[in-house]
């Protein structure tokens, strides 16, 4: 049994790591990492803009963004992926690579979810912080940038990690539109071996677990460090011990 795992990894590690590259497109774990990183990197700023639009006093920003969030939340990601996959080439007439389609879909989808997290973080701060910033002469954007968002985003770290982790996991759905990622590579391996699906997909599951766990771990240590700095030397131990334990169990 253990021998099976070792043999699979020995025979196929390169395929699982980078797919068919350099003879074909870059794939495997490398592509999964790139797709996840880009999706998170774009979804994060997009979500802040979406949250600000949803809180805007101008209806022409608020209404379309609210509609987008509702639609995105109410439609399964797989539907959205398939829809983009078939409709975007129809509309544009261009041969859009499936990687790009997957990336855009993930950014919209996760951006919408993340924007609700960001919005909750902003709203939960209450009016007092905004009042204080305005009374000191800060404009709306200045107050957001220097006063509201640093607090709102920090308070929302646990929920944001959840969304980031689910972004990583959602990259697997690229499989249905032939994005050559880790899942795609594992499936290729399985098709060649035919007799060891349990072993192949357990390896796949383990890799995803390690990936998601590492992200959670890094985020928790960042959160802990900020908490320690804010609490100062006197209260350092309390949040450092109490809060992150809870968030780790929440995430995994």
């Amino acid at each position, binding site marked *: 049994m253990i021998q099976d795992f070792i043999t699979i990894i020995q025979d196929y590690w390169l395929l699982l790591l980078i797919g068919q590259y350099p003879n074909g497109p870059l794939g495997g774990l490398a592509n999964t990492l790139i797709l996840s990183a880009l999706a998170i990197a774009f979804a994060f700023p997009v979500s802040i803009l979406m949250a600000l639009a949803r809180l805007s006093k101008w209806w022409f920003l608020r209404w379309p963004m609210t509609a987008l969030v509702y639609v995105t939340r109410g439609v399964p990601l797989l539907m959205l992926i398939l829809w983009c996959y078939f409709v975007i080439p129809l509309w544009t007439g261009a041969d859009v690579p499936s990687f790009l389609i997957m990336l855009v879909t993930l950014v919209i989808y996760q951006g919408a979810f993340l924007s609700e997290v960001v919005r909750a973080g902003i709203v939960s701060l209450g009016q*007092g*912080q905004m*009042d*204080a*910033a*305005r*009374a*000191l*002469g*800060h*404009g*709306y954007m*200045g107050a957001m940038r*220097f*006063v509201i968002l*640093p*607090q709102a985003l*920090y308070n929302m770290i646990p929920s944001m990690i959840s969304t980031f982790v689910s972004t990583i996991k959602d990259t697997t759905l690229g499989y249905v539109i032939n994005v050559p990622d880790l899942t795609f590579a594992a499936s290729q391996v399985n098709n060649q071996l035919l007799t060891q699906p349990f072993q192949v997909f357990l390896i796949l599951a383990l890799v995803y677990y390690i990936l998601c766990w590492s992200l959670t771990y890094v985020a928790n240590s960042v959160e802990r460090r900020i908490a320690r700095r*804010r*609490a*100062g030397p*006197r*209260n350092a131990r309390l949040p450092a011990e109490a809060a992150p334990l809870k968030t780790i169990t929440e995430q995994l």
Partner: protein
Amino acid sequence: MSTLVSEPQAAQAIRIADVCKSYGDYQVLKNINAEVARGEVVVICGPSGSGKSTLIRTVNRLEEINSGGISFEGQDIHAPMGASELNKLRSRIGFVFQSFNLFPHLSVVENVSMSPIRVKGVSPAAAHDKALKLLDRVGLADKANSYPGQLSGGQQQRVAIARALAMEPPVMLFDEPTSALDPEMVGEVLSVMKSLAAEGMTMLCVTHEMGFARDVADRIWFIDAGEILETAPPEDFFKNPRHPRAQRFLADLRH
């Protein structure tokens, strides 16, 4: 609005003219007319729900009004104007909140120095030095690198006063600055306010501290149900209140 023509050298720091404000059908402020002269300390008192806080929040336009006007150094702060113009006016009116509203993600010295840097464009080094001086003045120089969460309520409110002073406002507004404090911390905040008054700061304070009103105020505005019923120097107001509602209010305080 003829009373609100722009007079750069107006004798009044604040002039409130015919101000009305309603929330739906409920009228919070009814035709308020009042003035605060330069260097004057005015205490607004009255029962809770009378509109004191709403009135003081209209002075720097944290609350909008329905009609009337409020001029600050001759400029109507409720006139239609661009956001940057309003921000500039607001930055010259210090405001101290009942609930302190310090920025918990910034250290004490950052709380005090951030707005001069970001709003007025003061250099970080100069703003930092100024902040330390202000913190020294409110007796908190040793807390410069602490975070608000590590301070007592009285200390936080003194930082909030220093933060407002850092913008060098000619006028300070206080909205019940001691109401959220434990009794033993009220004194430290009031003594900072007293020293400000002694230096000639123009102050408009909503407070329930009648001792402060008696000792420090130049004038009292008594407000009830959205109307200013009486304005008088404290010695007159406390000894011979003219309006029956004020008489009842003071009698209730003595019980």
